[in-house]
């Protein structure tokens, strides 16, 4: 049997691409965006379409990766359509690292594109709740039967319930949650593609309208178009490619529930399992991390991740973020592209966590660059605080 530790640094991210705009909109169909991202990420790596033998995607009508490969005229030897919500891309990267490390495929492509903002404006869809769509289709799912009748706004209501519990249990305040939005916006101010670049204050967050108490509008992520792709290959091959390899040092995934009403403890996510597993595999501790990209569907999502991954003790996340340490110049730079709160959020944000983490480790982040970043964490959280997946990424120096 292969030990988890044996997978450490055997695979690397070698190509990345992402697309987003300050208007929140992108031109082109989802397939066209996916192909553009794949080509851009392959070019970033110095690889060609003919090199790809593993295909990883999670959105399609039924067989996501099979439909994508057909569109691309690709006949891969490794395929993966795993869907865990917004953390799908970290899960897919974990699976790709495993497949590459064990010789199942050599060049893996992971891709994502979604255009909820354009679709909504065109009247052809958008961001409706999955449960409401299922109900309209006549489905009898647990969510339709046991949650939908009570009118919880999705998805913000689920996160609001978690925030209410965290506040009642640990005394966390709206002001503390607001600090996360303020720090994130400071990063976004340095990203010309970010949807929201104007600086904000805690008072601005508190003055924004309640969406589902205690969460306000500025505690919530954007709804934008966006796309991205990541190319991975073996450590051996990575060294000969165009850009410095970003090694996958550690991975971990877990999930606790699908519906928020089934979450065992609303103050503890599966990150309390996926995080330590990833750190253990990487052989590091949270103190060794230079930059974190934490799924920020809502401010509370970040706060719970900080606690669950061990950057601070459970219950102390509010005080931990209150000094602005997540922002530029802080001791734990977080969501350095402006995050889902201010850069882009097309519904499943996890792709952008990996792309930004890789760029930080390559030193490509321009004014947002965290000086000397050697170890980054990309931590996805999908569903309604349901499924987390943690990647620890590192440079040649930390391999």
């Amino acid at each position, binding site marked *: 049997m292969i030990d988890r530790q044996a997978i450490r640094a055997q695979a690397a991210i070698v190509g990345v691409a992402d697309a987003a705009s300050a208007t929140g909109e992108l031109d082109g169909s989802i397939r066209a965006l996916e192909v553009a991202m794949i080509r851009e990420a392959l070019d970033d790596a110095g690889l060609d379409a003919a090199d790809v033998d593993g295909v990883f995607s999670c959105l399609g009508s039924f067989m996501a990766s099979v439909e994508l490969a057909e569109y691309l005229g690709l006949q891969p030897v490794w395929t993966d359509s795993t869907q865990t919500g917004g953390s799908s891309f970290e899960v897919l990267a974990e699976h790709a690292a495993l497949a590459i490390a064990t010789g199942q495929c050599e060049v893996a492509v992971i891709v994502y594109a979604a255009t909820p903002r354009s679709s909504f404006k065109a009247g052809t869809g958008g961001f409706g709740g999955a449960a409401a769509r299922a109900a309209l289709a006549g489905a009898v799912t647990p969510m339709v039967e*046991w949650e939908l009748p*009570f009118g*919880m706004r999705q998805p913000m209501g689920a996160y609001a*319930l978690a925030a209410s519990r965290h506040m009642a249990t640990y005394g966390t305040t709206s002001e503390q949650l607001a600090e996360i939005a303020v720090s994130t916006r400071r990063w976004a101010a340095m990203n010309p593609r970010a949807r929201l670049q104007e600086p904000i204050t805690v008072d601005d967050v508190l003055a924004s309208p309640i969406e*589902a108490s205690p969460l306000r509008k500025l505690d919530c992520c954007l709804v934008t178009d966006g796309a991205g792709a990541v190319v991975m290959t073996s450590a051996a091959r990575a060294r000969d490619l165009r850009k410095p390899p970003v090694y996958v040092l550690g991975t971990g995934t877990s999930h606790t529930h699908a519906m928020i009403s089934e979450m065992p403890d*609303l103050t503890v996510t599966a990150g309390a399992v996926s995080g330590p597993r990833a750190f253990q595999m990487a052989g590091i501790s949270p103190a060794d991390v230079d930059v974190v990209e934490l799924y920020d569907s809502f401010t509370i999502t970040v706060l719970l991740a900080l606690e669950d991954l061990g950057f601070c003790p459970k219950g102390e996340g509010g005080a931990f973020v209150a000094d602005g340490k997540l922002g530029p110049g802080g001791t734990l730079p977080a969501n350095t592209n402006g995050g889902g709160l201010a850069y882009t959020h097309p519904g499943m944000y996890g792709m952008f966590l990996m792309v930004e983490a890789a760029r930080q480790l390559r030193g490509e982040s321009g004014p947002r660059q965290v000086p000397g970043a050697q170890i980054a964490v990309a931590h996805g959280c999908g569903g309604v605080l349901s499924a987390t997946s943690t990647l620890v990424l590192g440079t040649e120096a930390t391999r």
Partner: protein
Amino acid sequence: MPDAEPTTASAARASTSTGDAVSETARRTRFEPPMSTAGAPFWAATREQRLVLPWCVSCHRPHWFPREVCPHCWRPGIEWRPSDGLGTVYAASTMPKPAMPMLADRVPYVVALVELDDGVRMMTNIVGMDPDSVTVGRAVQVGWEALSDGRHLPVFTSRT
């Protein structure tokens, strides 16, 4: 009695049914849930405003939501035991905007997870209370809101 209001108001709405499907739909102020096989005994009891919960006959533990097997031991035998409908608010959020248009007249309304004394937690609404007074840990009891087909939806209100 604070829990009387939702029952009465909804019953009044439902009791004016003429059997006309279109106008009936128009009057509904709730999404009325479909029934799963596993949930059918629960919904049947709500017709008499009785709260029943699924318990495993093998490991003798309750669970929520209703399943055809016990989520603790994966065995299939389920028995339905009455609950006194007492519990506490585990988490709560007030909706200033409706999640769906038919709830527009209710805003602001409270969505909560209530932990029943029986040992299960369910999503529900807290009714008949000022939303600001619905705090985590608050003692609540079940009340019933009539659905158009004779079933009732379990909602919770301040414990008397």
